[in-house]
């Protein structure tokens, strides 16, 4: 008997040890439930993190654009027609973008800010002619928003005067390689020739075929935006803050601020509903674990009626009896969760071995977050205690006279 242990703990542990088979079975039962929950959670969060990461590899967390305008157009018939029209033809610059950028730099939530001059253009090489998006960037700033340097597959991210970085898809379409020349023409008939200095792969075919990065200055002059920028890309420390921060920035600057959450609304909704349905499954697993614990303890209270009666006759209070059985629930939950975390870890290792891309690399990395184990242990112990409430109350209220006579 450990001298530091209170009476209730000693009795709870002895009772569990004595009912060896029962205790073992229910701990395994809890373990399987916890394993499924932990495994599912790890898998789901790994999967979702991976999807979000892929989605955001070629997107800023927040994009600031000039405010949308409501245009009033006179109809030819002289009547007044009112309609909303998105600004289309001429690119507009963000007013006083330098001041805005300076102000945003003071916000602690923001990780990086990159002003961009971008617009539609054509690229010509030999016979090939492709519609592209021309992006004028400051490569250092831009790398803070989009991890372009890591995504270079050939050459380097260098956009000095007369230099351009293009995607692998476009390179294929144009038959262009590092060192080759391409000619970029915009709607205003401005033209400039660039040398390809790097090829990137942002993991998105459209982006790889469309984006052409040049220096901010070249894009500004080609797009007739001298001194201006068409958008400001922002990356955040916490992507979940995007929506909140976008509204805040929009309110403060009067600019249109689109968060990735809004831009990818369908995708985000899909992720959310995936989480909701997994929560429902987890809840029901938890419920069946709770019923399992409760039913084992109800039986145990009946089996131990006489011992409960004796303890009561010896002066054990109702509270002490209650705690003895609550603790048994908690202990079963706790050990079940340890077993379950171990099982989940094993599943994840197996899954890692089996779920591989055709080239043999892991499909995506998932780890068992120590927090998840801690939460599972705490949660399962709590569920154990809650499930023990009913049986424990029965034990506490047992009439000692009846129990002893039995």
């Amino acid at each position, binding site marked *: *008997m*450990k*001298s*530091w*242990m*209170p*009476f209730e703990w*000693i009795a709870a542990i*002895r*009772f569990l*040890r*004595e009912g060896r088979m029962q205790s073992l079975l229910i701990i395994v039962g809890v373990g399987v439930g916890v394993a499924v929950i932990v495994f599912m959670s790890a898998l789901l969060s790994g999967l979702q993190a991976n999807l979000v990461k892929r989605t955001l590899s070629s997107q800023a967390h927040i994009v600031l654009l000039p405010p949308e305008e409501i245009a009033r157009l006179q109809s030819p018939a002289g009547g007044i027609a009112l309609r909303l029209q998105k600004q289309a033809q001429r690119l507009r610059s963000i007013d006083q973008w330098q001041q805005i950028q300076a102000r945003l730099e003071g916000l602690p939530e923001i990780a990086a800010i990159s002003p961009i001059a971008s617009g539609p253009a054509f690229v010509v090489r030999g016979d090939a002619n492709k519609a592209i998006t021309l992006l004028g960037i400051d490569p250092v700033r831009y790398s803070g928003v989009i991890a372009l340097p890591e995504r270079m597959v050939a050459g380097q991210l260098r956009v000095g005067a007369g230099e351009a970085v293009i995607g692998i898809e476009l390179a294929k379409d144009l038959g262009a390689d590092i060192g080759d020349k391409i000619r970029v023409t915009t709607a205003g008939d401005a033209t400039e020739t660039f040398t390809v200095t790097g090829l990137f792969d942002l993991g998105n075919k459209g982006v790889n075929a469309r984006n052409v990065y040049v220096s901010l200055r070249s894009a500004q002059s080609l797009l007739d935006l001298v001194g201006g920028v068409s958008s400001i890309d922002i990356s955040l420390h916490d992507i979940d803050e995007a929506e909140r921060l976008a509204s805040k920035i929009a309110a403060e600057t009067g600019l249109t601020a689109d968060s990735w959450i809004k831009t990818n609304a369908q995708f985000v909704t899909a992720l959310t509903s995936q989480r909701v349905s997994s929560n429902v499954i987890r809840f029901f697993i938890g419920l069946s674990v709770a019923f399992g614990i409760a039913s084992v303890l109800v039986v145990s209270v009946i089996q131990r009626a*006489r*011992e409960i*009666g*004796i*303890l*009561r*006759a*010896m*002066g*054990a*209070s*109702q509270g*002490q009896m209650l705690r003895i059985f609550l603790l048994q629930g908690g202990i079963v939950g706790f050990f079940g969760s340890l077993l379950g975390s171990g099982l989940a870890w094993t599943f994840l290792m197996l899954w890692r071995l089996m779920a591989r891309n055709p080239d043999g690399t892991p499909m995506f990395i998932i780890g068992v977050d120590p927090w998840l184990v801690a939460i599972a242990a705490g949660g399962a112990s709590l569920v154990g205690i809650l499930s023990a409430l009913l049986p424990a109350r029965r034990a506490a209220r047992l*009439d*000692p*006279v009846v129990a*002893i*006579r039995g």
Partner: protein
Amino acid sequence: MADPVTTTPVLQLKNIRKSYGSGETESEILHGIDLRLERGEFAALIGPSGSGKSTLLNLIGLLDRPSGGQLFIDGQETGQLDDTGLTRLRGQRIGFVFQHHHLIPAFTALENVAMPLLVARGRPDAEMFAQAGRLLDQVGLAERKQNLANQLSGGQQQRVAIARALAMSPSLVLADEPTGNLDTHSADDVFALLREVNTRLNTTFLIVTHDQRLAARCDRIIEMVDGNIVADRRHQAAAN
């Protein structure tokens, strides 16, 4: 012998009634029991089966509440106490020895004897095991301290139960057919042990028994029939 006029009785019952059921099915089992036990008394409670002996013992042991009347333990009226109060008083003042030994099988003999102390103090300590060890020595089980309860014979288990009943140094020990499950030889041993504790510690005993021979060895014989005390004789017990 204590002087009954000047000392507080260990137990006093005034017009104790007990009924079971209600309405149509209500039946009164105890019809107004008056009883007084002085400190150091060694009394037998006898009577035919169903006369209400166990019912009375459960009331005295504060395991159950009377339907009417007053019950005093060491002068303290118990009618006003809530469950916690009754439990505490029971733990401190009353020891039980039941017919069916009633040890807790998950614990050793030593731990069973220490259990009332553990329950009262909340945590184990060396002193309580030392005391439990002394009690087991006294009941002749020095060699069996580490045995689990169900590794002992019936007579040995009953000795452990007696040691346990004494752990809190109670004023009153209630024994409901303590020898009912034992052969004659073990029964004599157990009875002799109770008597020895009584003379050595001056602990009060109330013992329910069907065994006339054993009853005759008590100082006082209280006889019940149909929920009434019909005879109450004090006598110098026959030589043990």
